[in-house]
């Protein structure tokens, strides 16, 4: 192969298809959430980077908020129990630039089919050895006025 052809190829071949990358990024987040719903720590952890930050902003009913940080691994921590969990993102928005991505949007957390809390959730992702992994998660926790909570 001529040097010119190699250069031309390098210049015209995009590293990845952006739409495909977005789908892969979202699939990673959804797989982690499926793990949360299934209380499967290993399934969640498989999608997390080893060192990262979990940040929770608790909103009280009086409008005050508290910011709390934990190691990212705390996101995977689950206690076994009979109640059925379901965490869901609502119309998540995805951005990708090269090896970095983010997913953000509202989420709801239901226990036995009833929404108990909700908020905004934000995932930072990086592609690590060819696989998208969650680097950091930041979310708010609201306990009133959630989607699907009813009056």
């Amino acid at each position: 192969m001529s040097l010119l052809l190699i250069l031309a190829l390098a210049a015209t071949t995009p590293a990845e298809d952006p739409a495909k990358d977005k789908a892969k990024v979202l699939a990673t987040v959804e797989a982690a959430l499926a793990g949360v719903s299934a209380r499967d720590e290993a399934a969640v952890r498989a999608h997390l980077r080893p060192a990262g930050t979990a940040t929770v902003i608790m909103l009280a009913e009086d409008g005050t908020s508290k910011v709390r940080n934990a190691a990212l691994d705390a996101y995977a921590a689950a206690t076994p129990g009979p109640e059925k969990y379901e965490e869901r993102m609502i119309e998540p928005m995805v951005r990708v630039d090269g090896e970095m991505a983010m997913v953000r949007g509202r989420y709801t957390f239901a226990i036995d089919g009833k929404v108990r809390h909700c908020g905004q959730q934000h995932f930072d992702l990086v592609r690590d050895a060819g696989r998208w992994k969650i680097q950091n998660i930041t979310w708010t926790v609201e306990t009133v006025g959630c989607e699907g909570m009813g009056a």
Partner: protein
Amino acid sequence: MMSALFAILLAQVTPMQPMPKGTALPPPGTDEGAVMAPINALFAGLAARDSAAILAQLRPDGGATVANEAPNGTRTVRHMTWAEFAAGVKPGPEKYEERISNPAIEIDGDIAMVWAPYTFFIDGKAHHCGVDHFDLAREAGSWKIVNITWSARATGCEG
């Protein structure tokens, strides 16, 4: 009378105030300006090579992550604590400047994110570029940077 819901919907679709020409950065005094304040202070700290000024904008428990694309195609991801991140900013003779353009500033109550193409200049020459991604949280009324993640490449940078 505007219902709360309507106000929220309107806030989401109303375009931001006109940006100062040339920078596309939000003016101070707006919600977007308040989110950008710690980021601008971080860049000022970087230009001054003042690690204390940088650390003052950061929440202690977050971290920095760089996704680097080398010219030969090698890709590496590196995570740093803030101490490691700030340790890289030492006094020296070269002039540092990080410039961002057209930041996407998305505020969801007490969390926000900024996604902005950047170019990093050393002595006025583009050294590397990519996209900066900041996570921010509002605590006691002021915004702090929780995490920074950025892509970095040394080819195809403007300037």
